[in-house]
């Protein structure tokens, strides 16, 4: 409801009028009242006007007096004056009242109702100033400035200085600091604005980066400044000192400003953080930078960068990595972004083994300079993990290697070569060993080792000439004299000559070796020495040489020297001695190498000596032993001969026919057929021969396809019997003879199997590969895939292994193979650094029902490591925590160590302590894992500055820990750390 204004007729109501002394002279009263009004005695004037009723402008003056006394009824009072010439004055003073109350919007509206003539009157300065201030308060700086400049144009008044001050403030807010300073200099001449103007001049100079002025002139102002201004001034001076490079002074003034407890803004925290950082108070820097609100500006970039460095210095690498990442994502300062990205990449690799960030860095930025460092870091990290292949891969990206890098590179090559040699991958190992030798100084022991082992690999892979050259060079250098390698050089050289058929040279070197009295290969050397005589047809010398071997190492089962000596005797024509020698191994086991050969030679020798019965006995012995088919055929042929020579033709025919029928694939069958023909001819029964010949035609005279089938079947039978050498030989013959056979794949499988069982894994892998990569999926292919994958994995050809296992997993029909394939995929993917696949597969395996406990553990560990390599720490920690539940296992113990390492990387040193002590209290923890955990604990002591405690920890490990083997790295880790501490202590003493 709109309320009616019920204007009280105040005069009538409240008058009880105490009439003034001159009630009948209202003019005089009015004049006196006006005079009082002009003199500023508003209260009394209002009373006097009030007694005059509506005389002249008494009502208006009364209202005006009340306005001048700042009546809260100003809004009503101005309306009362609406019809009076005092209206402008009333609005003016009402506006002034509102101005004094701080209601600038209302004040502006009220002042706008004043006629413009006021700007030419006595109140012009006040009006323009206050109206201008209203604009200023409302943010209308242009209008404010326009009005205030009018004040400047008026004569000097009480409002001149405030107007100048305000103009200066407007210029200041507009960042026109030079102009602002001029105005503040003017306003500063007024005592009322002296301090404030001086303050703003300092602020203007600060904004203009005149820090010397700020320091020189700002400090004296601090003393008398009110609290809030002191806070701002203190901060300004502090910043000036910091820019001038005096962080101590900067902190002093900053603390003074902060003590005034002003609410702090984002830039305040940034600045405080910068001061702390400059002073090296990294904890303080972290606290302040972290308190900054999130932002994406240049401040955020600098803050993130310095925050990251602060975290590094306080040991929290994980937080440092996050901060570097943030700084690298902001584009403001290129150099900062680039360096932050680089550090982020280093940390990602250090903490998680994640190389993707390095690759991203290389993609975005130039790889020269820092790019080289990337690879160096990758190499170092790989060496830490004993991943020599990765380390070499990284080093290969470097254009030039420094001395230290060369040293590392040489060692990495050597160790990589060793890994491959251990896996049987000799071909691949050669390259690394040669590289190690290349970077080693000529007389470096490691270089000699590398060359020696390279020569061994070359020899194994058939590069005899090159191997020989290296051995000779080493021999000439007297390399590795006190080692097995050096002592066997002559032996190795001799073997090279043996391979090359240079018997004389071989004999020479064997003599050298034998004269060295080295026992390692003496037995073989003696035998080979005799062989050298034999092959040179120095049978007499060969007899003696073999005799030496026999006298030093002879035993009935070591048939070879006896056999060869017998041959030598035979070739000398001394059949008696031949028989005698061979008789000495008569008691050898039929499984002994060369037993068949020896028995056969014995039988022949006996036959030649005319001891047909002994020969027959010996031939029969061959048949009852474990002889190969050739020797069986030979024995039968020999028995045929014996029977024939002794006139037992039928027996001879039986023997020969057996050869023809059962050994049809061998050349002996044809010889036997001829012998049968001869016998029948001798018996005068050619028709019998013809009949027999017809009957065996299909056996003897086979088509190429039939012969091929026969070969194949033979190979199969040998395979089933497990006679690997024969399988190998026969298969090789088959593949040579029947290169386009449809059975080739199967034969290759048998060949591969035989090579595998004979230990020739590289060749076996090649053969499996041929089977696995062709044909329909059947049992051959499945087995070939399995073996291919297994051997490739063993030879550390992980990409090939992964391909094999992947195919196997897809196509395997046997459940067992599928399970193994899955495990193989996991392992191969991990070793081939396909961490995504490894993580996925391992996660699947860990949850697969039916898996053994140890398989699940392995899968969890692979999962953890793979996730770490992808910087997926949370997933990795989940897996590690599962494993750590049982620290008595290898994986569990390792997981515990990794969790401790995670706490260390996060700078949570207290957590490290807690975890390590908790681990030591658990039953079943292996000492290896416990020791590694204590090493990390020691590292955490170092990070915290407790070097003495760290040293004590390492020493206790050194003294109390028993290494579990040659590959136990704990000893090396502790030794390195103690050495570092010693160096640190020496440096401190210096």
């Amino acid at each position, binding site marked *: 409801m709109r309320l009616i204004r019920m204007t009280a007729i105040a005069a009538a109501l409240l008058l009880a009028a105490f009439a003034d002394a001159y009630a009948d002279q209202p003019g005089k009263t009015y004049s006196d009242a006006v005079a009082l009004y002009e003199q500023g005695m508003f209260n009394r004037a209002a009373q006097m006007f009030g007694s005059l009723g509506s005389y002249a402008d008494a009502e208006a003056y009364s209202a005006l007096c009340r306005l001048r006394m700042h009546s809260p009824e100003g809004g009503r009072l101005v309306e009362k004056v609406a019809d009076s010439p005092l209206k402008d004055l009333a609005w003016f003073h009402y506006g002034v009242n509102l101005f004094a109350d701080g209601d600038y919007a209302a004040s502006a509206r009220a002042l706008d109702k004043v006629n413009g003539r006021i700007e030419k009157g006595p109140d012009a300065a006040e009006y323009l100033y206050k109206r201008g201030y209203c604009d200023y308060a409302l943010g209308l700086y242009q209008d404010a400035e326009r009005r205030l400049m009018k004040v400047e144009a008026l004569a000097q008044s009480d409002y001149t200085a405030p107007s100048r001050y305000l103009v200066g403030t407007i210029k200041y807010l507009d960042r026109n600091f030079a102009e602002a300073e001029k105005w503040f200099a003017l306003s500063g001449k007024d005592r009322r604005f002296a301090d404030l103007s001086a303050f703003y001049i300092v602020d203007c100079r600060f904004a203009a980066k005149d820090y010397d002025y700020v320091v020189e002139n700002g400090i004296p102002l601090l003393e008398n400044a009110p609290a809030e201004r002191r806070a701002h001034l203190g901060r300004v001076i502090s910043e000036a000192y910091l820019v001038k490079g005096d962080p101590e002074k900067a902190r002093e003034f900053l603390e003074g400003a902060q003590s005034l407890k002003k609410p702090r803004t984002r830039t305040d925290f940034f600045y405080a953080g910068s001061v702390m950082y400059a002073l090296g108070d990294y904890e303080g820097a972290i606290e302040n930078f972290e308190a900054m609100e999130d932002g994406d500006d240049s401040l955020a970039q600098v803050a993130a960068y310095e925050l990251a460095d602060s975290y590094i210095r306080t040991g929290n690498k994980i937080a440092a990595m996050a901060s570097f990442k943030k700084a690298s994502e902001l584009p403001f300062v290129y150099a900062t972004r680039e360096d932050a990205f680089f550090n982020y990449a280093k940390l990602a690799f250090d903490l998680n083994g994640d190389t993707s960030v390095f690759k991203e860095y290389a993609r975005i930025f130039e790889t020269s300079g820092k790019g080289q460092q990337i690879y160096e870091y990758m190499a170092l990290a790989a060496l830490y993990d004993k991943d020599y292949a990765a380390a070499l891969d990284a080093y290969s990206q470097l254009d030039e290697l420094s001395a230290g890098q060369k040293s590392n590179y040489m060692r990495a090559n050597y160790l990589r070569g060793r890994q491959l040699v251990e896996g049987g991958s000799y071909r691949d190992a050669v390259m690394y060993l040669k590289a190690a030798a290349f970077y080693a100084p000529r007389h470096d022991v*490691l270089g000699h080792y590398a060359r020696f082992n390279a020569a061994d690999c070359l020899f194994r892979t058939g590069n005899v000439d090159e191997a020989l050259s290296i051995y000779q060079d080493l021999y000439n250098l007297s390399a590795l004299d006190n080692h097995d390698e050096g002592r066997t050089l002559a032996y190795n050289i001799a073997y090279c000559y043996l391979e090359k058929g240079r018997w004389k040279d071989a004999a020479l070197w064997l003599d050298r070796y034998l004269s060295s009295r080295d026992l390692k290969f003496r037995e073989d050397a003696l035998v080979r020495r005799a062989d050298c005589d034999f092959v040179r047809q120095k049978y007499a010398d060969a007899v003696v040489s073999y005799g030496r071997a026999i006298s030093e190492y002879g035993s009935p089962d070591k048939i070879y020297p006896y056999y060869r000596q017998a041959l030598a005797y035979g070739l000398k024509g001394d059949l008696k001695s031949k028989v005698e020698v061979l008789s000495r191994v008569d008691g050898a086991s039929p499984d002994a190498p060369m037993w068949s050969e020896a028995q056969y030679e014995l039988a022949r020798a006996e*036959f030649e000596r005319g001891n047909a019965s002994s020969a027959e006995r010996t031939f029969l012995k061959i048949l009852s032993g474990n002889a190969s088919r050739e020797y069986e055929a030979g024995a039968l042929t020999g028995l045929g001969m014996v029977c024939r020579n002794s006139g037992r033709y039928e027996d001879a025919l039986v023997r020969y026919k057996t050869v023809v029928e059962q050994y049809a694939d061998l050349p002996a069958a044809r010889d036997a057929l001829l012998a049968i023909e001869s016998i029948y001819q001798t018996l005068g029964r050619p028709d019998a021969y013809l009949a027999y010949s017809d009957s065996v035609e299909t056996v003897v005279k086979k088509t190429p396809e039939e012969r091929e089938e026969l070969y194949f079947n033979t190979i199969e039978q040998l395979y089933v019997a497990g006679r690997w050498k024969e399988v190998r030989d026969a298969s090789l013959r088959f593949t040579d003879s029947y290169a386009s056979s449809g059975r080739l794949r199967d034969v290759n499988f048998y060949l591969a199997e035989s090579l595998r069982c004979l230990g020739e894994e590289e060749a076996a892998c090649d053969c499996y590969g041929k089977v696995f990569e062709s044909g329909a999926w059947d049992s051959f292919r499945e087995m070939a895939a399995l073996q291919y994958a297994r051997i490739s994995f063993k030879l550390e050809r992980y990409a090939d292994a992964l391909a094999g296992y992947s195919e196997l997993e897809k196509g395997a029909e046997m459940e067992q193979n599928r399970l193994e394939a899955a495990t193989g995929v996991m392992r191969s993917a991990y070793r081939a650094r396909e961490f995504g696949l490894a993580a996925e597969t391992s996660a699947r395996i860990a949850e697969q029902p039916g898996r053994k406990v140890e398989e699940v553990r392995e899968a969890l560990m692979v999962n953890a490591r793979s996730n770490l390599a992808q910087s997926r720490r949370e997933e990795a920690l989940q897996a590690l925590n599962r494993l750590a539940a049982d620290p008595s296992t290898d994986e569990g113990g390792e997981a515990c160590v990794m969790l401790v390492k995670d706490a260390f990387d996060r700078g949570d040193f207290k957590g490290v302590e807690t975890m390590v002590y908790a681990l030591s209290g658990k039953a079943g923890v292996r000492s290896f894992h416990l020791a590694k955990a204590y090493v990390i604990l020691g590292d955490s002591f170092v990070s915290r500055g407790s070097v003495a405690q760290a040293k004590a920890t390492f020493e206790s490990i050194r003294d109390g820990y028993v290494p579990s083997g040659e590959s136990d790295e704990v000893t090396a880790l502790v030794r390195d750390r103690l050495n570092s501490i010693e160096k640190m202590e020496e440096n401190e003493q210096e």
Partner: protein
Amino acid sequence: MSRNRIIAATAGLLMAFNPVSAQINTSVEVTNGYDASIPDLERGFVDMTIPDSADVFDLEFDYKVFETPYKGTSAFSPYSVRLNQNDDGGEHHRLMVKAGAGYVLRPTACLIWEPEFKDRFRMAVYGNFDGFVGNYRGINPVSLEEDGSFAGRDLYSREGVAGGWEFGKCDLDFEVAHSGIYADGGEMSGPMGAFNSIYARAAVRSAGQSKYQYGFAAAFRGGADSFDGKRIGDNAIDLDMRFGRSVIERVAVLVDGGFGLDSYSAEAAFTGYNAFITPKAVYSHGPFRVEGGLKFNISNYAGRAFLISPDIHATLSFEKARMTLYADLTGGNRSDSYSDMKDRNHFFTPVYGAPGNTAVNLAASAGIRGAVASVLKYGVGVSYENDRSKLYDGVGSIVYGRGEVFGVDANLGLRVSSVFADLRFRYNRDMGDIPAGTFSTPSVEAGIVAGFNVRRRIFLSVRLDGQTSRTARRGENVRYKVVALPGFLDLGFEAGYRFARHWTVFLKGQNMLNADIRRTPLYSEKGIGVTAGVSFVL
């Protein structure tokens, strides 16, 4: 062993079974052309060892950042100072002391102190002293012609405290004062004593927008005088109230009421009272507003008397033209106390008669008032008053009788920059007879006040008041059947010069025309007066 060597070895083996051997007979000699090869060459290998030096790597991880010297935040954080604007420009002075004297001696002194209070309380402590010490024109009380002069004095002071609170929803006023009049007209006035009166008033009224409006006021005045050794006492109490409420939109109801009691003790002592109640309604719609009701009065002066008079006020405003038409109809009683008489005429004594009650049957006025361009203010109106009992001045007496006056008012006000002028003009005409021996209302009363200031340092104002003569009718059997108080023009001026921030010297001129100014019939200050003085404000 290489494949080739395998093959070679195998070939060697097979050659053992070649047809030559198969056809061996005992007579066949074995030749020495034996196959020159060594079967099953299997070399021994030394296990690959890792020398100590192989395991020693130069491993060092470091994280370095380059220096990032602080270069400033590049963020401008302006510091804002809120200027304390709570000043009134220093123009509300709190203390004024003014004193002056001159010739003819009209001493003047003034002290005003308005202390500052933080809340909405205001107060002024004041003291004024004015006077005249000098010669009066001698006036023949019969002919009223000037005849010689006599020495006299008229000293008047008033001091008190007045103030109030503005609470926002209501205002409170108060005043406590003392006034003293010491007038001595010699033989003309008789043995006058000093008149002292005290006055106290308090009032409260509602303020601001509200459904309810109210107001209450109470005043007391007590005076003491002596004449010819006899004491005169006068006590008056006045109570007034108002209460109103908005009923519906545009309509409100009001009730005004009042009670006054006056007790006069002298030779003719009496106690009289006045009371009234006025219920009325208010209607407002746009520019039109009317407030009207009936005033019911009762008094006991001259016996109990009832009086019903209108109380109507109407206005019609034209905002754009800044003009208002008004019309008022009022009436009612007003007691005239002894103190009021003394204020009106310092030489008043009980000889003049007993004060009584003014009863207005009807007072009507209508007119127009407005402003032009915030420079000029004007007003023109007519008025009519019909009194049942009206105070008339006689020669050395007062008379109450019927009265009827018609009047025309005009006023003009000018304010331009630091120049002002106010002109008032009134024409009166007594309708009908006035009591014998009493003076009529002057036909014309006019006055003008004008002034200016230069930069608020030099002040000058001139005042000119005047009125036409007033005549009185005497009885039939007297020599002077009609006597007249002459009309007069009272010219005065005041000039001041603020020579320092707080100091001003002033010069006042009174009765510059040396006119015979008889505001009261028998007293007229003689001579031009010039008073000089100084004032100090703080």
